[in-house]
């Protein structure tokens, strides 16, 4: 059951479009920076398979310039 967080850099003037798109995805939780063109994205999926599918879907969003992984957890393991 992976949980990951990313820094998402939208294409110029596409911040709102990216927020909207990510907000529609059930596994995504978005935190918006008020004064910078950047979002924090936290993803939560039930399996590695679902995680891979989500990653693929995210990579298809053309309004995202860059996504940088910050942290990753798997809740099956003790941390």
């Amino acid at each position, binding site marked *: 059951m992976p949980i990951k967080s990313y820094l998402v850099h939208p294409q110029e003037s596409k911040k709102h479009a990216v927020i909207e798109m990510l907000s529609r995805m059930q596994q995504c939780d978005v935190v918006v920076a008020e*004064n910078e063109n950047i979002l924090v994205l936290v993803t939560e999926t039930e399996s590695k398979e679902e995680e891979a599918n989500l990653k693929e879907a995210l990579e298809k969003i053309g309004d995202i310039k860059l996504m940088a992984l910050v942290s990753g957890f798997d809740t099956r393991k003790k941390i």
Partner: protein
Amino acid sequence: MYTSLQTNRRDFIKKMAKLSAMTAAATMFPGIIFAEEQEKGIPADTNLDWKKAPCRFCGVGCGVLIGTENGKAIAVKGDPKSPVNKGLCCVKGYHSIMALYGSDRLTQPLVKKGNTYIKTSMKEALDLVASKMRETIKEYGKDAVSIYGSGQWTIPDGYVASKLFKGCIGTNNVEANARLCMATAVTGFLTSFGLDEPMGCYEDIDYADTFVLWGNNMAEMHPVLFSRLLDQRQQRGVKIVDLATRTTRTSMAADKSILFNPQTDLAVANAICYELIKNGWVNNSFVEEHCNFSKGLTKMGYGLEDNYQFTDKPEAISFEDYKTFLEDYTPERVSVVSGVSVKDIKYLAAHYGDPNKKVMSLWCMGMNQHSRGTWINNLVYNIHLLTGKISSPGNSPFSLTGQPSACGTVREVGTLTHKLPHGVVNNKENREFAAKIWNVPVENIDPKPTYHTVEMFRALDRGDIRFMWIQVTNPMVTMPKLKRYRDAAKKEGRFIVVSDIYPTPTTDIADVILPSAMWVEREGMYGNSERRTQYFEKMLDPPGEAISDTMQLIEVAKRMGYEKQFYYKDETHIEEIYTEYRKHHEGKKHNLAPLEVLKSQAGAIWPYVDGKETKWRFNAKYDPACSNGKDFHFYGKKDGKAVIWQRPYEPAAEEPDKEYPFWLGTGRVVEHWHTGSMTRRIPVLHQAMPHAYVELHPEDASRMQIKTGDKVKLTTRRGDITLPASVNERGVPAPMQVFVPFFDENMLINDLTLDSFCPISKEPDYKKCAVKVEKV
């Protein structure tokens, strides 16, 4: 926001993931704001009790709201009613309440027996502290006992410490760690204006057109204030100029970054003054009406030897003398020594000189931790005085502080060897005034200052001091040339008491460890950089037997026979202490707001006169203490005039040579607050910045075949240390310079630093010594 322990593990992990990303974003984008997230992150379906407090960490003094439930702090958010931060928080503020809940909080007093610590009751521990003090005084005299406090002391903590030691015991062995960070700002203000603390306030940010940051990495050290600068740039197109020795996140966010060679800010400031005069940018009527010219002694030394003494001898000079002196500081000459181009010196002077621009100068440790720190403070005031850009909205030389109450407690209560709450110990009237309020014979107050901080630890080494009580500070990480003072504290016949909330390298040298109540686990006040006094109530119970530093001092005072002076009742002692303390500052020049006002709003700026704050001191339009009938009145000086000082450039105490060819500078990082004793116990912050490192310039690294992560050995005349390298990461030092943050107790960079200090302020220079750099 902080998640309560009740939250399930998966939610907790999710929150950790989110916070990690937000922390990463904060380090990449100085001043980034996630304000909405603060509101959203607060646990739903809770019945939170929100109460206001100033933030526990830096001297900006952001207002925070703390949400408590069932006796635990479970959420924190910026206080939208606070004029300081207007609802924002930095990454440390967001996580501040987590610092209350580290797993190794000190909860019970510990007494050293042989090589182990034995748990004891608070009553027995305080009995022991009082009896050891009495014994030491009996055997070695009153000047053999001392207290070393902090800019994190609340106002009542510092007040009772000063009253006990100076008023009752009769020793001036009272110092605080603000000597290591703010003493220079104090002597700068006193020599130029006769009164301490900035004349302006944060509201200046809303009016200034140009901001010149003198050696001040605001993006990391004062991120909320820096976000206000960035906000003004977005709204009004203001200019931010970063004048520094190292490229930092502040440089990257600034409109212009100018690098100067270490110590040569003195020459650059004089060159700016030269240009102001040469180009006719001096506000002649202001200078004639409101300024005097003076010079002091030069070649003062650097305080490297024990018992070093220095007293400046000011001598009046004329404006013409001053102009002649500045002939040595043409941009062309200064460019050679400073490395700053002639064009950039003229650029700076043009900003200061433009009559249509309001200019704010901001500084912190770069100018204060400087072996000629008082001088460079004076020189920046010179620029503002020559142009008349002072004490009016947007025209403001502004010294920032690093601790929540460096101003409120150390500078205003006066917890330094030479100070009293009002005035200084060597002034008879000031002693009489304090003695009357303290209810002690005036003879109790010794007219002679004893030891400033470095000398106090040297005295401990020599055996002149035998007992030291350290509260809310971690000198075994922060003292320069640390090894000498660590060894000193371990010597036979020394008795060390440490009051703190966590184990630190300083508790390691203690004979008695007293667990303290932290921040909102007790009631108190802090005073921030803009003269704002802020109150916080007790919101939580401290763990175990921990009690406030104020109560520890009161209890020891009573045990030593001073019940009459320490008459305060348990339930009302903070109110009683504050009411008594206010008497020291009565009058239009420093009146403090009544407690009910501090309770009802996000603090108040002093002087608080007739129910109003004084936002700009010395300006008759805003300051009711002005009484000379003119537009400005620098009433800290007898003749009502500020002083423009002739101060030359002089080299640092130790400069690179053949054997030690690099400069070593030290400092802080955004994730950790000072020695990291609190922030390193906050998992997100610790993970974001787990250990110290040494920054090198890419050219030096390439020549020495050093990559990020490689082990690098640093050696100075004091010792050596091995750290991982950082190349082209967060900060980039200039060629032949290295930078190391000091937050990491496992990599004590202060074992290498030099204990040279400004002869006037006695504040050490942590920014400059010579070091050898080798790849391991």
